């Protein structure tokens, strides 16, 4: 006879429930109702006569109830023992299979008639069919993020195969360490909970892409694998052999916002990851799903950069895609998507306290238009005083420019923050009237405040010039090689020293030659905020002392325009994401919508709830299921603009299908499909176990019946109501009895 174990020892904790009847018994003793009583003599006599029997009855019921709970806990924990040798019936040991399938998009590689993904599913199916009866399966997807497709053990092969059939791969990449974490959690959960799984096996079906599997060389992952090997057999099933792949790794629009009739300038890169093939390819540009041009791409050098221009006549959103046909067996990375918005003009609200001082800025924004009047120019400016700010409908503007505004109230700051968060742009430039401390207090209180920097001390007394910071930023990039534009020669005599928080989101567009930041920016929600350190459009001809000579400098107009376009482009770059990244946005609270509708590239329509934040006067939405590359159409964002498009692209790095050398696979992994029917050498076939759960449950049932009977016998049966006369026949007699 072997020792005793429990299939689920953790469930033994429920044995503590056996204390409940005893506690109830003790509690009941304290919960007597008080009642005055006259006929004590009969009670005392009855008690004297029955005390012993009553005590016995109480103890008997208590014993049965306690035993009942104790046995139930024991049965639930399922005690296991080695059977008596005379029985001698061998019992199979069951295996818990954790089947981990790499569902990153590299598995869609289809060199032959089947993709690696199809091959993986076939291998899984063959393993499941060959497994012993009683084995159970869990299914884990190794993509990013990893997930348990089947998180509870499935015993029936047909059920698992049905799940497998419905399982579609995603266009995500893969990560080894998080996948192993999930596997470890599942393994621990099920083997701890259920002692039947004395043996477990983890089988990974993967293309062994180096990008993913190089992680197995990291010490942390190695120790993780070692831990898993202690409690399960590890198998890896490498899929596929040779490979060739190229991908569209880049598709950039020169500007995500253009005006009607302007040329769309796009830059694309096609890169070959494999050593030899493919050498060339046919690339097709598509606008709104329709091919508009095609070009032969030479990949002899490993990559090719394409420049593309196209004129879009209609305002609104347009989808742009570059597709390379029959490039290689992995189709998903042979195309890339973008969304561009064609506008009829840029609408700017210029808030200023002194029209005279800001007139150069107005002219710079709208060179061909009148002062404050809407014209037909690309930039249409409307000028208001600070007191008129709240009267404006901000949603009708793309950019708000606070030029030399004395101060902003908290209410106005909150209002502007919501405007920016929902996709607007804000530019702040100081001046003589600006109370820097008020701006700091209201709009730069902490790191999450609207402005990316605080106005520090006023620097003056010398002449400063701009440092273009190697023209890295898109705003100043057009000035590269254009010395005559005068960006570097523009004299600045006064500026606020901008105090920048240590945040990567805060970027310096332009600096001074002494190292101080001249113009900084930060993305805020779906919008963008830019802060100047000096007055925009000042000149010594206008006042003395002047902040700078920008109004008279040739670089001012292009700088202002580059900034305006850059400021409002944030909203449109917001319409691009990588597979797996969420799509999100903010709606004005006035939009009385409770949900949006998202149409995925697979044609699946998903309803997305709109979460309302009354305190912040806004509503937000978020869609996380961007599992496939392509265009996502979001309906209901605005009552006027109809649907809005979002472009979701794959991570181009996953296109490198280089494989891990088999020799580098950790030694704990056995390579190849395991033989599910053959036991490993360490397994002891002669040590089957017998479960005592069934007899224990039978005993629990019997005790339940006994308890019910005893409760009826000792309680209810005595509590049958009877009329006084029925209870006391002698009373009936008394009423009839008479003298004589």
């Amino acid at each position, binding site marked *: 006879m072997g020792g005793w174990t429990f299939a689920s020892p953790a469930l033994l904790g429920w044995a503590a429930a056996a204390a409940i009847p005893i506690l109830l018994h003790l509690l009941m003793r304290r*919960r007597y109702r008080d009642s005055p009583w*006259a*006929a004590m003599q009969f009670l005392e006599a009855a008690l004297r006569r029955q005390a012993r029997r009553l005590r016995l009855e109480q103890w008997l019921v208590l014993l049965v109830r306690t035993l009942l709970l104790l046995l139930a806990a024991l049965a639930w924990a399922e005690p296991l023992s080695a059977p008596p040798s005379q029985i001698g019936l061998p019992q199979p040991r069951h295996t818990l299979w954790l089947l981990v399938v790499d569902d990153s998009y590299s598995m869609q590689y289809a060199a032959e008639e089947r993709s690696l993904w199809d091959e993986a599913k076939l291998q899984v199916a063959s393993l499941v069919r060959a497994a012993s009866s009683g084995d159970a399966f869990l299914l884990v997807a190794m993509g990013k993020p990893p997930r348990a497709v089947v998180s509870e053990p499935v015993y029936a092969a047909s059920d698992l195969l049905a799940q497998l059939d419905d399982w579609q791969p995603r266009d995500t990449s893969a990560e080894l360490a998080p996948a192993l974490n999930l596997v470890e959690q599942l393994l621990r959960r099920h083997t701890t909970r259920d002692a039947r799984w004395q043996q477990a096996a983890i089988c990974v079906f993967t293309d062994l892409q180096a990008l993913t599997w190089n992680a197995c060389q990291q010490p942390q992952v190695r120790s993780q694998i070692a831990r898993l090997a202690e409690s399960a057999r590890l198998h890896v099933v490498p899929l596929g052999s040779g490979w060739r792949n190229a991908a569209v790794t880049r598709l950039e629009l020169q500007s995500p916002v253009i005006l009607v009739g302007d040329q769309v300038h796009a830059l694309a890169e096609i890169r070959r990851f494999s050593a030899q093939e493919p050498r060339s390819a046919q690339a097709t540009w598509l606008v709104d799903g329709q091919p508009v041009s095609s070009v032969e791409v030479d990949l002899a050098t490993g990559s090719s950069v394409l420049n593309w221009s196209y004129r879009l006549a209609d305002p609104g959103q347009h989808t742009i895609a570059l597709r390379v046909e029959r490039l290689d067996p992995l189709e998903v990375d042979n195309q890339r998507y973008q969304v561009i918005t064609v506008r009829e003009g840029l609408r700017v609200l210029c808030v200023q306290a002194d029209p005279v001082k800001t007139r150069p800025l107005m002219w710079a924004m709208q060179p061909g238009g009148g002062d404050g009047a809407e014209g037909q120019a690309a930039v249409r400016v409307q000028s208001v005083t600070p007191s008129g700010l709240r009267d404006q409908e901000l949603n009708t503007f793309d950019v708000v420019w606070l030029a030399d505004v004395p101060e902003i109230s908290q209410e106005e700051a909150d209002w502007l923050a919501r405007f920016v968060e929902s996709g607007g742009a804000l530019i702040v430039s100081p001046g003589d009237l600006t109370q820097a401390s008020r701006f700091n207090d209201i709009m730069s209180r902490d790191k999450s405040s609207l402005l990316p920097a605080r106005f520090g001390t006023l620097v003056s007394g010398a002449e400063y010039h701009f440092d273009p910071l190697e023209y890295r930023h898109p705003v100043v990039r057009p000035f590269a090689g254009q010395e005559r534009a005068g960006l570097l020669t523009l004299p600045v005599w006064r500026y606020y020293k901008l105090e920048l928080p240590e945040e990567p989101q805060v970027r310096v567009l332009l600096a001074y030659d002494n190292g101080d930041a001249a113009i900084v920016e930060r993305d805020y929600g779906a919008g963008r905020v830019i802060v100047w350190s000096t007055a925009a459009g000042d000149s010594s001809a206008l006042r003395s002392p002047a902040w700078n000579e920008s109004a008279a400098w040739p670089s001012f107009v292009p700088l202002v325009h580059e900034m305006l376009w850059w400021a409002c482009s944030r909203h449109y770059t917001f319409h691009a994401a990588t597979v797996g990244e969420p799509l999100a946005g903010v709606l004005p609270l006035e939009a009385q919508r409770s949900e949006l509708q998202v149409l995925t590239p697979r044609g699946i329509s998903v309803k997305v709830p709109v979460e309302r934040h009354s305190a912040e006067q806004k509503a937000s939405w978020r869609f996380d299921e961007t599992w496939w590359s392509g265009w996502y159409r979001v309906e209901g964002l605005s009552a006027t603009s109809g649907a809005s498009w979002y472009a979701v692209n794959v991570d181009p790095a996953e296109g490198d299908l280089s494989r891990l050398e088999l020799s580098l696979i950790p030694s704990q992994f056995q390579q190849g499909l395991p033989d599910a029917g053959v036991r490993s050498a360490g397994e002891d076939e002669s040590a089957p176990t017998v479960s005592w759960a069934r007899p224990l449950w039978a005993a629990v049932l019997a005790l339940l019946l006994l308890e019910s009977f005893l409760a009826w016998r000792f309680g209810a049966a005595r509590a049958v*109501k*009877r009329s006084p006369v029925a209870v006391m*026949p*002698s009373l009936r*007699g*008394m009423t009839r*009895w008479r003298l004589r």
Partner: protein
Amino acid sequence: MSTTRLREYFEPQTLAKLKGLRLRAQRLVEGLLSGLHRSPRRGFSIEFAEHREYVPGDDLRYLDWKVFGRTDKLYLKQFEDETNLIAYLVLDTSAGMAYQGPAAPWSKWHYAQCLAAALAWLVLNHHDAVAVATFDERLRRFVPPAGGTGQLDNVLRVLDEVEPYGPTRVAQALQELATRLPHRGVVIVLSDLFDDAESVLHGLRALRFARHDVVVFQVLDPAEVEFDFQEPTRFLGLEVLRRLAVDPRALRRGYMAEFRAFCDRLLDGCRRVGIELWPAVTSRPLHELLVPFLERRAQRIV
């Protein structure tokens, strides 16, 4: 006495049921008004009735010296007399009478009060005499027998003033009462009789042996009869400072056996000495008890 209490004593429904009925003793009391009954009172009549043994305090004028001469024993001569009926209402005022169970409309004492008041009114309404006595461990209050509306006031005042209190010793109280009742009459005892059954019977027998017509209304609460408590209960003794925490459902059978044995013993003992024992459960309307009782008494007159 409050008007409310008075109205309560003479509940119209009860009185309407009783109108026209007369309370008459069948064997021993003769009513002066009707002349139909013979009084058991041995008093100032010419017609000799019987002897009884002398007890200290008896009037020596009625000693039968001839018998003393013959037997050396002191006997009193007793004479038959034409008299009105005298109803002695004897109420138990021990603390146990204050009990009122969860299903009862009123306490046992309240019930006994009303029953006594109704009986007093009936008797006085027919120009008979009423006396009232209360007892617990011993005899406490005694209103001598008298008739007329003034006596009704006296009776009601006593009933109203007394509150149930203290333990009970039925036997001792009734024996004391038996020696103090001046005339024969109908002794109506209203009590739960919760004492030792033999002692109770001993006390009742003392009254009976004094040639009184004895009627006992055993006033009981429905809870005492049914003992239908469902929840664990701590019973606090009203007459004794004792508390018993029990599961009434488990103890019910034993309680009922004890209670039934007690009642059977009382019934049997009363039957043996010719005492009427009427169970008066407080949940029953008063007239449902009085009407059969008075009808029974009326039949015995004829």
